[in-house]
């Protein structure tokens, strides 16, 4: 096979080629998200048994933990792509990073909100300033700061790169969120899901959480693909292909 015939993923690294790819893939991820979330909801309500100590309130875990996982994961992905855009000077990676931020912020909010609603009946308080909750709140501020910084800077490339520096500086917060329960034993319970030891919670609960997490992940990909398509259209509006694309739609 000659070099020009060999398939390379790099052909999708330009906004023009990525746009249709994102458009094709997005419905599939949306469908996967719907199926997985439906399955997760079924497990969380109809399969998982009532908890002996916490009663029905524990069912919030099926949203709280996956949302928290997504909030951290999306930040790392955002940091990665904005870092790539900073170092390699690629436009598309920065666009993807910009598209990731709102979804990440929303999952952080969901994690904080459901955490408060779970904390009240279980530990008697809506909020406590322990390490994990505080750093998750800081994560929300980091997402908002990233979006605010990019919105405030007019020059697009400067906005991308400045956002990248901010995102990378903030990456240090993620291990703090994750390991804080191990470093400081305060209110938030220690991790019960780990790679090495058998999980200490019932298997159905674990499966429910993993299914919901996968569902949220598929949802995030679908939402980010949709958003990055909007971002591409906005930023590449001076090109021929966008004009044709929009003209064909109007």
């Amino acid at each position, binding site marked *: 096979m000659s070099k020009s015939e060999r398939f390379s993923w790099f052909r999708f690294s330009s906004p023009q080629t990525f746009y249709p790819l994102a458009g094709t893939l997005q419905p599939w991820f949306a469908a996967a998200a719907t199926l997985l979330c439906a399955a997760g909801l079924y497990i969380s309500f109809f399969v998982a048994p009532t908890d002996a100590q916490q009663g029905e309130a524990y*069912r919030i875990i099926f949203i709280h933990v996956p949302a928290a996982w997504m909030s951290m994961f999306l930040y790392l992905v955002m940091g990665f792509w904005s870092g790539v855009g900073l170092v390699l000077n690629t436009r598309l990676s920065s666009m993807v990073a910009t598209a990731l931020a709102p979804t990440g912020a929303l999952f952080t909010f969901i994690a904080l909100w459901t955490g408060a609603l779970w904390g009240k009946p279980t530990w008697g308080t809506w909020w406590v300033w322990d390490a994990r909750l505080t750093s998750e709140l800081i994560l929300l501020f980091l997402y908002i700061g990233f979006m605010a910084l990019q919105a405030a800077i007019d020059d697009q490339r400067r906005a991308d790169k400045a956002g990248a520096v901010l995102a990378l500086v903030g990456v240090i917060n993620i291990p703090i969120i994750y390991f804080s329960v191990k470093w400081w034993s305060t209110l938030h319970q220690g991790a019960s899901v780990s790679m090495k030891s058998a999980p200490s919670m019932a298997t159905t609960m674990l499966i429910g959480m993993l299914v919901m997490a996968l569902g949220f992940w598929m949802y995030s990909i679908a939402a980010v693909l949709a958003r990055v398509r909007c971002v591409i259209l906005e930023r590449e*509006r001076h090109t021929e292909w966008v*004009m044709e694309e*929009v003209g064909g739609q109007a």
Partner: protein
Amino acid sequence: MNWHSWSEFLAMGGYALYVWGSYAVTLLVLIAEIVALVMRRRGVIERLAKYYAARRRNHETEA
């Protein structure tokens, strides 16, 4: 089956406020995001269509 009646399901063992408060807000937030994305895409395409139309008109008057 965990629930023996619809009302039992809704009551969530007394924790209805917390459980449904969580699930409902989550659903709301995710739907709001989807709606916002749909509206954003429509807005972008509308604005760009107007922008190109205006640019075409400018070129025609100049030519």
